[in-house]
């Protein structure tokens, strides 16, 4: 657990996503959109290949927040999906969640200012995380 002082850097955490993870996530979440499974369908609708569910990437943010805050209660969590995370047929995509501790608001809730990248490309825009910590 990181010291949650405003401005403190949060240790970057990197997670891997494989095609098998996407299959398991589709079953667990109910999101069976074929763009997350089938290369041909993904390309047919103009995507660069099989992409991770946006919510998979946001779930990794949730994991990072839990790790940094010792599983603090999450009050707000969200982001824009600004670039796809392409998951190769072999190997894995790597998503890194990094950032700093933000300010505490009037209700005592703590914001985290995060950057979420895959191979150096920003994949989540305007991420918002608010925790009771």
């Amino acid at each position, binding site marked *: 657990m990181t010291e949650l002082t405003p401005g403190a850097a949060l240790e970057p955490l990197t997670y891997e996503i494989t095609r098998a993870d996407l299959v398991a*996530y589709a079953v667990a979440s*109910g999101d069976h959109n074929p*763009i997350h499974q089938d290369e041909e369908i993904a390309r047919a609708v103009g995507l660069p290949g099989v992409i991770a569910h946006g*919510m998979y990437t946001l779930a990794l943010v949730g994991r990072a927040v839990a790790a940094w805050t010792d599983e603090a209660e999450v009050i*707000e969590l969200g982001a824009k999906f600004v670039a796809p995370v392409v998951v190769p047929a072999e190997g894995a995509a790597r998503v890194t969640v990094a950032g700093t501790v933000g300010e505490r608001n009037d209700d005592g809730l703590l914001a985290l200012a995060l950057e979420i990248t895959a191979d150096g490309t920003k994949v989540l825009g305007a991420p918002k995380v608010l925790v009771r910590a």
Partner: protein
Amino acid sequence: MPIDASLVGRAFPPTSPVPVTTEAVTAFATAIGGGATDAVPPTFPIVVTFAALQDFLAAEQVELSRIVHGDQRFRYQRPVVVGDELSATLTVTGVRSIGGNDIIATSSEITDATGAVVATATATLVHRGGAA
């Protein structure tokens, strides 16, 4: 097929209740690379939110493969716990067209078995147009 802009403001019927079981939470947590747990991941309510989105897309005869998730935000009133039974009621809050794509904004109220609001989920869906 473009999305009908007159949908804005329409609330769709609540989803069937989704029970939050240890098995469901463990499957979700394992899929995102964690282990077996009773701690419910904060994005777990996407399960019932997605059910509401899917009901909406089916009602509007929109093909799921043409949908890309644009934005998703949750605001929680309390943590979701094992034993909860969640339903989501989706309202379309906006439809606009940009460069041949329709951008559909939605807000879903996630309630427990007593009807109390557990979380509000807002989502933007991008309906990719173009030749089928």
